[in-house]
């Protein structure tokens, strides 16, 4: 059988003799799973609206430490990334760059391990975590072609003041597959803020396949902000798998603006009482971008709560897809779940496909979802124009107003600011907004 997925698998080194290594065993399983597959097709329900035709046509190299695919920009310095009150870690083409990252990674209460060796640490019981969803094509591919992985552990009772910022840069002139793995372990009563930022050179041809595993221990709080602003030639497949224990809260933002094809799957299990998650998302599409979000929130036990808000803005002939699923298990009583998907179509050729789903097996629940598709309000536009604001500014202002509902709750001023700038540009208008 020969297809582009199998072509990638053929580039892998053969199975290692050392079978005691659990990671090798896991890889053997993963290989067995996908050795007769192709990329998912649109006939599969979860890929109904997203065609992977582009992936099927390309022949990808697997990223390695030597950047055999080449680099577009050779020189970065640590100063390019420095920001106040932030710890930053830089990855280029899938590999950790210690020279460019903060040098004080081992701080009080936090343990950050970029595992440059492919074998991860036994202590963290990574085997169980890495096993998750191994039957999915992209998760299996992730294990098989893993570049660097990163483990972040926050100690018990610690609140980390500094924002942990992970910067993943694509710099490849050739089609290059980068598989990344981020594991975040929040111990009891801890709190942290993490930003995952994916960006790339204008000419980057990368295919990022990243899996983030979040494990929130009792009463911990995690703010997880995912920002994807890769260039227009890239493919981005991301997965967040989160488990939220008793009393813990997960605040997740997924902002997707880049990539020719981008797909993010977010799967949250609320597994202890009083667990809470808030999933917010914002996606914007221009040109022929295709942006897909699939989220699943599983209320596994009673007294768990969730809020979800996704907003999409589609221009030109871009296409947005949102699938939000809320599952309430049998006997999980006293649940509240709210979900909203709002979408703005700005062009005749843009398209949105949204599907908010509820699957409920318990009766004492309050679940609601709403979905809307609309356009800019003509009367609001007229109001602004009549006050002397140019059409361009008025339009930008209204689009920003639509996006603000997702941007405004982000607790990181720098990130909020950069998003505002993206919508409003560096002009008087944005200053006006910021002052107000």
């Amino acid at each position: 059988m020969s297809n582009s997925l199998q072509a990638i698998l053929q580039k892998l080194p053969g199975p290692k003799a050392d079978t005691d290594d659990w990671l090798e065993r896991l890889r053997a399983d993963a290989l067995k799973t996908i050795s007769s597959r192709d990329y998912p097709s649109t006939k599969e329900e979860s890929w109904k609206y997203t065609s992977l035709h582009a992936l099927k046509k390309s022949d990808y190299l697997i990223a390695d430490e030597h950047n055999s695919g080449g680099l577009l920009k050779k020189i970065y310095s640590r100063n390019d990334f420095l920001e106040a009150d932030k710890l930053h870690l830089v990855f280029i083409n899938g590999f950790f760059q210690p020279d460019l990252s903060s040098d004080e990674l081992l701080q009080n209460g936090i343990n950050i391990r970029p595992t440059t060796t492919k074998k991860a640490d036994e202590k963290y019981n990574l085997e169980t975590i890495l096993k998750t969803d191994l039957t999915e094509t992209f998760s299996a591919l992730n294990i098989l072609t893993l570049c660097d992985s990163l483990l972040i552990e926050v100690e018990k009772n610690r609140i980390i003041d500094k924002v942990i910022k992970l910067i993943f840069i694509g710099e490849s002139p050739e089609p290059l597959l980068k598989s990344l793995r981020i594991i975040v372990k929040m111990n009891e009563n801890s709190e942290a803020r993490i930003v995952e930022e994916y960006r790339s050179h204008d000419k980057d041809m990368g295919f990022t396949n990243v899996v983030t595993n979040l494990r929130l221990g009792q009463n911990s709080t995690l703010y997880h902000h995912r920002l994807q602003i890769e260039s227009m030639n890239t493919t981005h497949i991301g997965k967040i798998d989160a488990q939220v224990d008793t009393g813990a809260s997960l605040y997740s933002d997924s902002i997707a603006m880049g990539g020719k094809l981008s797909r993010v799957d977010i799967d949250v299990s609320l597994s202890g009482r009083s667990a809470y998650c808030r999933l917010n998302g914002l996606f914007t599409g221009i040109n022929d971008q295709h942006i897909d979000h699939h989220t699943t929130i599983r209320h596994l036990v009673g007294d768990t709560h969730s809020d979800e808000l996704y907003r999409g803005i589609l221009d030109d002939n871009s296409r947005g897809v949102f699938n939000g699923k809320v599952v309430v298990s049998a006997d999980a009583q006293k649940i509240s779940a709210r979900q909203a998907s709002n979408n703005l179509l700005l062009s005749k050729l843009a398209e949105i496909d949204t599907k908010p789903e509820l699957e409920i097996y318990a009766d004492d629940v309050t679940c609601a979802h709403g979905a809307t598709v609309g356009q800019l309000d003509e009367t609001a536009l007229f109001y602004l124009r009549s006050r002397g604001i140019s059409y361009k500014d008025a339009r930008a202002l209204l689009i920003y107003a639509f996006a603000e509902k997702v941007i405004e709750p982000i607790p990181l001023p720098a990130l909020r600011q950069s998003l505002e700038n993206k919508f409003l540009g560096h002009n008087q208008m944005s200053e006006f907004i910021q002052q107000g």
Partner: protein
Amino acid sequence: MSTNAKEIDQLVNQTYEAGFYTDIEQEFAPPGLNEGTIRFISKKKAEPEWLLEWRLKAYKQFQEMIEPKWAHVEYPPIDFQEISYYAAPKSDEDRPKSLDEVDPKLLETYEKLGIPLEEQKVLAGVAVDIVFDSVSVHTTFREKLAEVGVIFCSFSEAVKDHPELVRKYLGTVVPARDNFYSALNSAVFSDGSFVYIPKNTRCPMELSTYFRMNAMNTGQFERTLIVADEGSYVSYLEGCTAPMRDENQLHAAVVELVVLKDAEIKYSTVQNWYPGDEEGKGGIYNFVTKRGDCRGDRSKISWTQVETGSAITWKYPSCILRGENSIGEFYSVALTNNLQQADTGTKMIHLGKGSNSTIISKGISAGRSQNAYRGLVRIGGSAENARNYTQCDSLLLGDKSAAHTFPYIECKNPSAQIEHEASTSKISDDQLFYLRSRGISQEDAINMIVNGFCKEVFKELPMEFAVEAQKLLGISLEGSIG
């Protein structure tokens, strides 16, 4: 409301009311499905060659198709070779012209069902086309309808008397290869109803068909075709009951509606087939394809359904809104109890400019049942200023019941406005307390709340149907509340 309560009290522990069996000699096709079966059916009905060809083509397509598995329902595999595809009362050769000629046993059946034909004729002014098993045996008010040019007859009669109309419209809304069950239906359909409303005619009465499945092991494959010519209007009622049976019966009907310029069809269904017993034994499989095509400008289709019966309900009455400013409406109450499963909803395909659709769906799940709303709203690129409003609410009665919502929204036009809301909850303690504190019994209170929950849909039903529907809800919920 107190009347309702009394009715419920009376019906405590009562088994399925329509569960009896009429012993009439039948002419069966031997169980099994092959070309021979199809030729047998076609010959038996003395069909023209073109229809036989059409059936055989559908059968070919059916053979190439795979049974769909995507619905949120579970059932043991169906053996299509076990089913007998044709059963007709013996009196097929010389059909009765008046009631006196009708087999008294048949009349007795209708009596038990509470459909006294005579009374209905006089009081309700409803023409009833009764399908007893597969062949239409009695049609009333034909003459009166003929005066204004309305054609309302069984499908086989239509094939004989109006072949040009049937040929023109058959399979144009639901093509044979549309899906697995429509292909099966197209190959083996036995009979059904045909309605044609001529130009600028308002049908003088509500048309009604009572389907009734009777014989053991015979799938019912009805075919309904309604054509509303320009500027016409018709309201069509469909209601069903079936006798108690321990083996699952498959019902795969196809309903096609064609609406031309400025015309309107209102299609109402009360479905109360045998749902199986408390353990989920028996019960009807109701896998139906219903679709309407708003071909002309300003045409309108309104589907209203009350689904309380069947072990499994799997149907999506849909509208293709092709004409400019055409309107599609879908009002549904789906109630599941015990181990019933329902996966139902609608599709609104907007193609015409200014097309407008409304979806109101109310799901009630009790016992250990599964109740799913599955819907699609698709706005095509050419549908300027299309508008959709969707509301689907689920009410859960019982901690083992389940309610699901799967709405698909696809929008390719920026001028469209789509709103979708859904909620799932149980009866709130506040509401119950309020009613209880006013001296209303628990059962009455719940009944009242459930009826209120469904009010938006019931008000769309013709009056006599609305009463029946309310009764049905009370009966179907029996034993599940409190």
